[in-house]
């Protein structure tokens, strides 16, 4: 009798890890691989979260865990060896107009040197993590895996056990990068369901400045893709980071994204998350403020339609006094899509004089769309000023009427209102080329809502 056992993604991945482990020659005893091994041990103990898990209460990932995903190497990566066989990807489609940046391209989680274009400057190291593991071993061993905790986080443990490539960026003391760094993560699913693991390590030393843009795309929609990103960012004293994440995958794409910022004294981080497509996107954005007088700005935009589910979780951990954090997320949900927002502000004992703000506003534009939002405050210090607000609703009838009374058609008026609703977040973004690029994408998306 044939009894079909249900497919289990975790078992399959553990099997994959075993193979991966065996194939490593010489590397298997390295410190770096040791870290992977212990992450794999943790991964073994965990299971993929279900809706019973408080942090995944509104996000059902059954569609992911039921599927088989392989870590295929894309043919497009072979082009460096046999240039004639493969045409290059036309990157123009993924480059924001007017953006002069150093471009790093990762296809299915592996660095493509032929597509990338990196200029070299003193005091600045930009390279693939795979290369850095060999070349910058000391820095990697010191920092890799130190900031992003994977206990009780299955996806982070999964990422840490398979981590092999991604962005490695080190900006030395008092260096300001002239050109922004643009990372393009492209999924090629032509060989089957694709699992892409991207692992980034960003170290910004004292007084340094950098602008980083990350873009996620799918090259084709032959099969499903699962992207698992983990980014660790150490922000040194007085350093400044301006960070953008553009999530633009297709409707056969699932994405898990974990970004951990650790901020030292008087540093400033702006991070902007724009989610416009992808079937299921889950973002875990964590901030640890461990030096005084830090400023953190978290901006987010999500526009969903169809059966999309965009889930934004954030945690701002105020561990020391005198820091400021400001979180501002806005979303529009259409079709039968779902939005999830969970923002948590944690103010630890003794983190006095903390200022923390959080705001989440949502508009539902169709009968079947839904939003679950949970702005959460956990406060253990008394001399603080923390506020949060959340609203959900539909468009302001009076504003619509006002415009209609002045001869603007209802549909046009509706779109103007939606655009201006999102515009409030756009205003907080600093990079002109990115703002223009995103604006265009948003306009196109609003047309479909």
């Amino acid at each position, binding site marked *: 009798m044939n009894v079909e056992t249900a497919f289990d993604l975790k078992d399959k991945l553990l099997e994959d890890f075993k193979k991966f482990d065996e194939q490593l020659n010489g590397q298997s005893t390295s410190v770096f691989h040791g870290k992977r091994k212990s992450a794999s041990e943790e991964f073994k103990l965990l299971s993929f979260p279900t809706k019973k898990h*408080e942090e995944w209460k*509104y996000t059902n990932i059954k569609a992911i865990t039921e599927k088989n995903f392989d870590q295929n190497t894309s043919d497009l990566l072979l082009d460096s060896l046999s240039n004639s066989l493969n045409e290059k990807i036309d990157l123009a489609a993924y480059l924001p107009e007017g953006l002069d940046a150093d471009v790093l391209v990762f296809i299915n989680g592996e660095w493509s040197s032929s597509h990338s274009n990196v200029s070299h400057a003193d005091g600045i190291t930009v390279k693939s993590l795979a290369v850095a593991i060999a070349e910058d071993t000391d820095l990697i061993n010191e920092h890799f895996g130190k900031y992003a905790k994977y206990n009780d986080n299955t996806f982070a443990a999964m990422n840490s056990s398979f981590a092999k490539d991604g962005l490695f960026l080190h900006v030395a003391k008092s260096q300001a990068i002239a050109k922004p760094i643009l990372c393009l993560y492209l999924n090629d699913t032509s060989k089957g369901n694709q699992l892409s693991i991207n692992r980034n390590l960003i170290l910004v030393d004292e007084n340094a400045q950098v602008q980083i843009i990350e873009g996620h795309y799918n090259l084709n929609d032959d099969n499903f893709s699962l992207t698992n990103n983990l980014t660790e960012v150490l922000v040194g004293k007085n350093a400044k980071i301006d960070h953008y994440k553009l999530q633009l995958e297709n409707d056969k794409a699932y994405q898990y994204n974990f970004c951990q910022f650790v901020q030292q004294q008087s540093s400033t981080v702006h991070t902007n998350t724009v989610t416009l497509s992808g079937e299921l996107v889950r973002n875990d954005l964590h901030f640890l403020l461990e030096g005084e007088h830090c400023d953190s700005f978290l901006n987010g935009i999500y526009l969903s339609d169809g059966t999309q589910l965009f889930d934004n979780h954030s945690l701002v951990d105020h561990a020391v006094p005198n820091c400021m954090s400001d979180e501002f997320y806005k979303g529009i949900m259409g079709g039968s899509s779902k939005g999830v927002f969970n923002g948590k502000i944690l103010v630890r*004992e*003794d983190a*006095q004089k903390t200022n923390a703000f959080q705001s989440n506003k*949502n508009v*539902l*534009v*169709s*009968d*079947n*769309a*839904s*939003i*679950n*939002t*949970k*702005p*959460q*405050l*956990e*406060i*253990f*210090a*008394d*001399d*603080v*000023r*923390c*506020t*949060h*607000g*959340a*609203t*959900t*609703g*539909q468009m302001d009838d009076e504003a619509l009427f006002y415009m209609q009374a002045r001869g603007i058609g209802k549909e046009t008026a509706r779109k103007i209102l939606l655009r201006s609703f999102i515009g409030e977040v756009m205003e907080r973004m600093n990079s002109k080329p990115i703002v223009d690029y995103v604006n265009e994408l948003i306009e196109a998306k609003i047309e479909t809502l």
Partner: protein
Amino acid sequence: MSDFQSTIDDVTQSEYKWGFVSDFDEDTVPKGLSEDIIRLISKKKEEPEWLLEWRLEAFKHFQTMVEPEWANVHYEKPNLQEIKYYSAPMSKKTLESLDELDPEMKSMYDRLGISIEEQKRLANVAIDFVVDSVSVQTTFKEELSKLGVIFSSFSEAVKDHPELVKKYLGSVVPPRDNYYAALNSAVFTDGSFCFIPKGVRCPMELSTYFRINAAGTGQFERTLIVAEDDAYVSYLEGCTAPQRDENQLHAAVVEIVAMKNAEVKYSTVQNWYPGNPETGKGGVFNFVTKRGICKGDNSKISWTQVETGSAVTWKYPSVILLGDNSLGEFYSVAVTTNFQQADTGTKMIHIGKNTKSRIVSKGISAGKSQNSYRGLVQVKRNAKNAYNFSQCDSLLIGDRCGAHTFPYIESNNPSAQIEHEATTSKIGEEMLFYCQQRGMDLETATALIINGFVKEVMEKLPMEFAVEAKKLLSITLEGSVG
């Protein structure tokens, strides 16, 4: 600001004023929880067969459940086998006048400052005292019965109006609802039953004073309030308990049913023993399930609570807004000091069209206490034009306490409008300075600011309750915060 510090210390050191044990004979059953105990309780209370079956069914399901751990509170789980599930004062006969009352009990009420005579004469309040588990006194019953209002102890209602009890018992909080509701359904001993017939506006505030008295006795009350079409009732519940070192479990269930155009107002002042102020030991565990359903169109249910006591509170008075145009309200002041922990809030479930809800929650934490607001606003697919406004403010006094907010907002209808805002801060130094500059001392200024902070909720309390609530607040935060 060492001055301020010392006044804060005063606040956190103020002792529970109303702790004492009244000594009178008790008719108890042995400790422990089993089917036999449930049968015994049921027999002692001379209950009909269906109720016993109902209890046993609940108990059967209870045994399959585990104690919930998701709340933001930490405590040693009570041993359910160490609790006496039934205890009743010996004087069981119904009293017509106060002279017949056990003198011991009368003095207990007097020490609490509740003068029955005065309340009867002046405040026009009918009080149904529950000392431990059995009602010993019901006043104004006759007057109410002329209007057709039924206001009696739960056991009497089971005897006199079995059809009503059978119809509504468990209809809002099913016996399988949650761990403590299931436990309550299995072993509840008494409580209040209130029925307002069609078109009747109850002329007086109905009120019950609960006291946990016998050592080691868990109290498992069951309250059921039914307001038929166009009826109105305002119901008060207040609690003070004697000082104890042993944790006492309180797992009550309150059910409210509001039919078409009916309005039910439920107010609570809770001041159970919060535990030893030095060590945090002892104190009452308050695990309560309170839920109302706006069954008919245009109905209204309003919860108002002032929570100052208990070591651990776990309580979410909720409203299911089923009828179109129905309205749910929740007003709460929760004060925690010393080692108290509170995880409290509300649930508003919007099902009908044009339903509205309003949540105002004010939390004050002092000492080493933890105060959490946990609320759910859920708008179902068909709840067109649902509207919710929530406001949760927390005030922190002292740097070793915590204030937490966990609001869950789930919207499934595009026409629903939901607004939530929350703030957490300490008493502003500018505010204090402003008051002091105008000749107030620090203590008065702090009191003034706290009074202002909670005023929005206090205003919702019935007059006679507001006085007591204010007194409670000042005793709990005694020292600077009067």
